């Protein structure tokens, strides 16, 4: 009886697996995401799924759930079942090894690889003639955020200097330790803003807590999460407030989720709640729909937009070029092509105007 149950169960499992696989998996386009839980990447995924569905080609999505080992094993499995092309959103950006390993695996089978979003070194991409990278100039987001903040402050400096000490005190929420994008955004947002402030004859930004030598607060779990920003912000507001005349006058976050988390804590404390309340300028990156809405309400100051649709269409264009044996960058806007190995999807600022 038990044996029978076990057999039935395994048959059901096998059938459901086969159903998920969609029958013939030979020649599939394999798309590897570093995690399904990233809101921005999910938008790219939705856009890419739509294009691939429409093209009628066979494809499969893989979720590495933030683990490089998982991803590498997924790549090996996909190659073992005759994948025709790999589209990889690599997990580990700290070193070249993970990406190089994937390239080597693909090269062995003569399968093209397209990396996207999370940065991969030029040397890795160039080590294989059927390899390309679609991403953003990851340092750009930080630079653009810094410029946006600088110009925003200079336009109405006295209004934002709440305690009239001539300096703007700020807090920086970093998404993750050891992530190139987080590091660049944390650094350039402040540096570039300071450059603009200096040109306008204003003093540099000052971190709200002079004893903190890092000059940022990081999500301990490395998840760029709203919850981490809310907890930090409410703790900050316990010590710093308009009433104490030491209020934090500017909030910079590595992404929109953290910006929204900070706004939630500000709102609980009576700030950033529409007209009649003190609005602390909060800046993020990503231009998620939630953040765009907060900006339209006037409770958030600005964000940097990453073009998810543009990224998805560039990736799939290159993928189809490889499969149809056309030129790699055929049909890609030439302004966006850098060298002969990567496509940069431009950022834009979003301030609700």
């Amino acid at each position, binding site marked *: 009886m038990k044996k029978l149950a076990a057999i039935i169960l395994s048959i059901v499992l096998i059938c459901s697996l086969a159903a998920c696989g969609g029958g013939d998996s030979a020649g599939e386009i394999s798309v590897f995401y570093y995690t*399904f*839980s990233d*809101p921005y*990447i*999910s*938008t790219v*995924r*939705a*856009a890419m799924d739509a294009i691939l569905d429409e093209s009628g080609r066979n494809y499969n999505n893989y979720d590495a759930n933030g683990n490089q080992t998982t991803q590498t094993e997924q790549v090996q499995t996909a190659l073992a079942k005759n994948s025709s092309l790999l589209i990889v959103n690599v997990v580990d950006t700290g070193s070249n090894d993970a990406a190089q390993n994937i390239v080597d695996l693909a090269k062995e089978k003569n399968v093209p690889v397209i990396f996207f979003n999370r940065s991969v070194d030029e040397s890795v991409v160039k080590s294989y003639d059927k390899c390309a990278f679609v991403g953003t100039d990851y340092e750009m987001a930080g630079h653009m955020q810094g410029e946006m903040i600088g110009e925003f402050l200079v336009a109405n400096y006295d209004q934002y200097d709440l305690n009239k000490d001539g300096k703007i005190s700020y807090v920086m929420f970093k998404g993750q330790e050891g992530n190139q994008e987080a590091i660049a955004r944390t650094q350039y947002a402040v540096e570039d803003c300071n450059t603009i402030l200096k040109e306008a004859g204003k003093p540099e930004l000052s971190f709200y*807590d002079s*004893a*903190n*030598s*890092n000059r940022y*607060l*990081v999500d*301990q*779990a490395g*998840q*760029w*999460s*709203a*919850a981490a920003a*809310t*907890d*930090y912000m*409410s*703790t*900050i*507001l*316990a*010590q710093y*407030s308009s*009433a104490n005349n030491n209020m934090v006058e500017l909030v910079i976050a590595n992404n*929109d*989720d953290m910006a*929204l*988390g900070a*706004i*939630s804590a500000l*709102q*609980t*404390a*009576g700030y950033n709640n529409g007209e009649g309340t003190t609005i602390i300028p909060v800046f993020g990156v990503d231009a*998620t*729909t*939630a*953040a765009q*809405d*907060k900006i339209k309400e006037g409770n958030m100051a600005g964000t940097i937009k990453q073009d998810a649709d543009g990224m998805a269409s560039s990736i799939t264009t290159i993928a189809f070029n490889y499969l149809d044996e056309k030129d790699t960058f055929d049909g890609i806007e030439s302004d966006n092509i850098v060298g002969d190995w990567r496509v940069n999807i431009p950022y834009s600022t979003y301030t609700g105007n």
Partner: protein
Amino acid sequence: MSEINVSQKNNLSGRIASFRAMERADKRRTIIDTLFNNAMYIIIFIAIIFITIREPGFLSLNSIVNIISLTAAKLPIALGIGGAIVLTGTDISAGRCVGLTACIAASLLQMANYPNKMFPDLDVMPLWLVLLLVIAVGAAVGFVNGFFVAKFKLHPFIVTLSTQLIVYGMVLLYLMNGTNNGQTLSGLDSSYTDFVRGPLFTIGNVSVPKFVLYAIILTVIMWFIWNKTKFGKNMFAVGSNEEAANVSGVNVFWTIVLVFVLAGIMYGITGFFEGARISSCSSNTGLNYESDAIAACVIGGVSFVGGTGKISGIVIGVLLLQIIFVGLNFLSVDQNMLYIIKGLIILVACAIDMRKYLARK
């Protein structure tokens, strides 16, 4: 009232008298035992004094309210997990369950005119209905956990590991609903955010959010369930010795199932509050919440040995973790130290706990 006071006094003076009558060695052992048994309170006390000397603002009204509201936010999930630990089990599906219920609550309570609604044709639903719904979802996950633990005698770690994965998959699927495409849910209706984080009352310019009150109510309810109901007594009986409980007529199966259902209800409520407290829900919401909740429980003396634990202990555990978090921020301590300090405290707390248990044996 006065009678109780008198008896307490007698008790205390009696204890002092018996302490005086002891031999020196006994005296020393008694002192050491008392210190160890109250080690967590002593650590909290020392921590508060130390932080306050360095940063007097730590004990300002503002800061106390902040510590209390952070504690209140993390309390319900810990109260839920506590029951599973009393049964010598654990529940690692808690965080994902909070995430799922938070996303459900947020999606159903978006502003009517919000452009990026997950369900564009849906009016803002009544709060009580959504609250009941997320409680039901939490309870359903809890039921699955409890059923598999009780029926198949599987270790709760295995069962909840499975449900953790299943629930996470459901969160991801849920967020891809409609035109949402995995985006963060936001644009919550003000009736919802006011209900959760609106001011309960204001003292000296500092407003206390409403969820503090709800956390207190939940704590009282859980205290009542644990200490004053047959179910609570059965839970401790099953936790300390399942066989003995079974022999003495306790329905072990339903006790285990109900403990997990109750835990699930707590996760649902936590999710409902967390949705509004953070105001933006993504698939990250709730990630790893269980590890802090389990840590809080063991710090507060809810023992993995089973059958022991107090609601007051859980409150102390959660409070201590929040004091450390806020305190280290006030002191601008390198944040990496937070992990080390947390780890040490859990280790010390459990060691002290086991010492009590071994002594009793």
